[in-house]
């Protein structure tokens, strides 16, 4: 992949657009800052865009040494490729590293790879292994290690191996396809795909893709901690905690750019945030893993400021186009127009997120094209519904009984009602909701984030795919999506993406009110420990001021 990185001085085009919106008063300063920095614009540069100077910025290089205690669930370990919780991966990040990493700004950065290139048709990927990387048992890290790991990921016969699905372009019959990996030399290998897949490298950032040594056979990476990273586990007790210390006998390839802390202690305090709060007050933890709801503010009150990660996780209030009256595009667009997404974010999710634009592509996706959203016009909405002869029709919005999802749908329904359109709310318990989630005429579904914009569109909006709950079938959309799937360069893909997003808007596919944010609270002297959109805890970079 000619993964073009913008020069440090060059700004993301969307950031400039946001700056204009801020000047026009459409974006608050805070929202501008979160959006612009999420695009990878440095904080001082972002302030510069809107004509302000950045507040005094603290020095960001931590001192060497020190210990940190973090609240996090400690679960029984198992084979990395079968991990189903980010926490399992986070404990091991100090010694098990990844080929590539997903960054807070939405970019993918090389770790154990030095670089990679994709052919123009996204059918062949050349991976260049980082030279000079050593395992902590003294072995060299070579392309054979990479090939071994990719082969492990492709093995679908292992129950719960979620990597197998992500590697489908190079597997066959549930294992690595013969000839899919070509080892060129010690530091180079080539992947030959059976169909274009620009997500294959991105999928290697996922937490089950930890790179293990060839001697790893068992299912406990803590018991036999051979890895490339600078730390080693000292103890690991399920449900209680884990202690990790710097490995004195190993020279890390990234020496000098991390491994600041001598010791990291994970403390499992259960699932009740009140217990975490009590522990923080007693000085027993320095940071939380993830804080939700009111506790974000409560932790701030006791001196642990929050950091926020914008994610592409969202609530899709979608219409099913197979069930009337939602087969009529004017009805869908009218209902969209009746809803002010900002209000849904504020009342349904306490303003803990970013307003979205009804097309399910997030500003943190590298190929995001700023298209604007649906206009908010309740009068026009009512007029359109009346024009379709549905003035007396009673719509029904279904949601699960989960607190924030129900509250968000309540806000959506209340606004539609305020526009003068009849609507009824139904809340189903979780046990029954999922039995039929694909077929409700008008309902909401929670979607987790994927790093690339095309990934969710492929899963949920392509004609006839398994999770197409919107019943959306549009040949032009499918063709454009195919085209986008074959463009490895994000900037080039953005041009196609603009058209795709416009189709989503024109067709009124869903009301997608906001992107959810994630929060973490940490003491002010903890550095580099900001919340990560996919929950990564890279403690090899954490440090104390």
């Amino acid at each position, binding site marked *: 992949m000619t993964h073009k990185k913008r020069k440090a001085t060059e700004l993301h085009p969307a950031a400039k657009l946001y700056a204009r919106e801020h000047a026009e008063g459409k974006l608050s300063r805070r929202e501008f800052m979160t959006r612009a920095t999420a695009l990878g614009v440095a904080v001082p540069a972002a302030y510069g865009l809107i004509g302000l100077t950045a507040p005094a910025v603290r020095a960001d290089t931590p001192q060497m040494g020190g210990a940190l205690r973090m609240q996090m669930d400690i679960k029984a370990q198992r084979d990395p490729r079968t991990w189903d919780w980010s926490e399992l991966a986070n404990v091991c990040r100090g010694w098990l590293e990844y080929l590539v990493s997903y960054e807070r700004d939405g970019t993918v950065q090389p770790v154990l790879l030095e670089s990679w290139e994709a052919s123009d048709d996204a059918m062949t990927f050349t991976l260049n292994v980082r030279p000079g990387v050593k395992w902590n048992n003294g072995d060299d890290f070579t392309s054979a290690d990479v090939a071994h790991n990719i082969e492990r990921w492709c093995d679908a016969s292992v129950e719960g191996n979620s990597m197998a699905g992500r590697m489908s372009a190079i597997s066959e019959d549930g294992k690595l396809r013969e000839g899919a990996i070509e080892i060129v030399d010690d530091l180079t290998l080539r992947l030959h795909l059976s169909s274009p897949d620009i997500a294959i490298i991105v999928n290697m950032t996922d937490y089950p893709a930890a790179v293990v040594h060839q001697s790893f056979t068992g299912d406990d990476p803590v018991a036999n901690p051979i890895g490339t990273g600078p730390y080693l586990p000292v103890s690991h007790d399920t*449900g209680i905690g884990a202690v990790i210390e710097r490995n004195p006998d190993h020279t890390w390839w990234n020496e000098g750019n991390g491994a600041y802390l001598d010791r990291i202690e994970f403390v499992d*305090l259960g699932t009740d945030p009140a217990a975490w709060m009590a522990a923080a007050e*007693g000085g027993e933890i320095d940071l939380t893993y993830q804080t939700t709801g009111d506790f974000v503010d409560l932790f701030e009150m006791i001196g642990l400021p929050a950091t926020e990660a914008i994610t592409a996780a969202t609530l899709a209030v979608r219409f099913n186009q197979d069930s009337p009256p939602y087969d009529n595009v004017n009805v869908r667009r009218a209902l969209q127009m009746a809803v002010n997404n900002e209000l849904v974010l504020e009342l349904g999710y306490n303003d803990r997120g970013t307003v979205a634009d009804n097309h399910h592509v997030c500003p943190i996706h590298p190929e995001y094209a700023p298209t604007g959203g649906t206009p908010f016009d309740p009068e026009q909405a009512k007029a359109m519904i009346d024009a379709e002869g549905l003035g007396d029709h009673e719509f029904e919005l279904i949601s699960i009984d989960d607190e924030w999802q129900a509250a968000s749908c309540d806000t959506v329904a209340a606004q539609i009602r305020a526009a003068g359109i009849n609507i009824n709310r139904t809340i189903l318990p979780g046990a029954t909701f999922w039995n039929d989630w694909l077929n409700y005429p008008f309902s909401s579904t929670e979607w987790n984030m994927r790093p690339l914009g095309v990934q969710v569109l492929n899963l949920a909006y392509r004609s006839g795919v398994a999770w197409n709950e919107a019943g959306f079938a549009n040949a032009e959309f499918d063709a454009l999506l195919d085209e986008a799937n074959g463009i490895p360069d994000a900037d080039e893909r953005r041009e196609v993406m603009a058209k795709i997003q416009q189709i989503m808007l024109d067709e009124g596919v869903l009301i997608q009110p906001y992107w959810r944010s994630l929060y973490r609270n940490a003491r002010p002297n903890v550095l580099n420990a900001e919340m990560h959109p996919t929950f990564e805890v890279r403690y090899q970079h954490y440090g104390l001021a």
Partner: protein
Amino acid sequence: MLLFLARRIGVMLVTALCLTFVVFYLTNLPAKLETLAKTQAGARISDAEVASWLDRNGYNQPMLTRYGEWLGVVPGWTREAADGSVNGRCYRLTSVSEPGAAPTRCGLIQGYWGNSTRFRADVADVISSRLGATGILMLWVLIVMVPMALMVGVLAGMREGSRTDRSLSTFAIASTATPEYVSGVVFIALLASSTVGLSPLLVNWGVIDGPVLFQGNARSALEKITFWNFFLPVMTIALYGMGYVARITRASMTEVMTQQYIRTARLKGVSFRNIVLRHALRNALIAPFTVIMLQIPWLLNGVVIVEVLFSYPGFGWVLFEAAANNDIELLLAASVVAVVVVLITQLISDIGYVYLNPRIRIS
């Protein structure tokens, strides 16, 4: 006496058998097994993978057979893989892999408690280390609770209806009427919060250095118990039991104080202090002794709430974790331990009563 002991142990075995069967039945309902497979092999695995996991791990046999396996009266399941290697319940528990090397039966009778799926460890190890932590907590609870309860009860019962009696009784009733999950939270808010309660005041006055007076979380007590991290959990359990024992002591004390021999002593001119200490106390303490012993199983109850609330990994915490994760063999072992604790404390209370009260005989 021996017959009495044998009968008690027999009752204990029957109770344990019934209880474990109920627990076994409830944790082995098909939906529960599916949850177990999903927590073990991955939350998003398909139905076919669930079925294959259950099959490979011996969960697809009739429930009674598997209960028998756990008891050790039915031979443990074995399974021959395509490559000739043999796997099975007893192979896993003894960690041998050669075909034929493992014992045929490996249940409770043979001394195998099984494996904990939540902690991926031997159940016996998990239970024994956590029971130790709870033992320390209970020891401190008893050290705080018993003298306090007896003192309050005796002081209140000395002069029935006096002002001391009324105020101490009110205190005792209030403390025993407040469940642990209320008093624990109130304690944390009052004494272990840097924003509300007592701590900010004390910081203001310069009495304490840290942000809080007591720690609202007892995790650090696992490594080193200090007054500051252990006070709140101990007090939360102790207060609840204290009120009850104090009420019993008071009742017993007032009854003794109306006895003829107390009046005689009084008429003889013995001082009130001596009457209480020499004549009343010993007889008044018989009833509280049994109640304290019976209170211990009740305290185990409170331990679940308090250990989870203060994140102190002891027996109660293990019980909570096992139940939350449908850890079958750990739950079974925990119920056995609970039955043993209940019956042993009852036994001690019965036998102790005989020694304290010469009028009673075990026949």
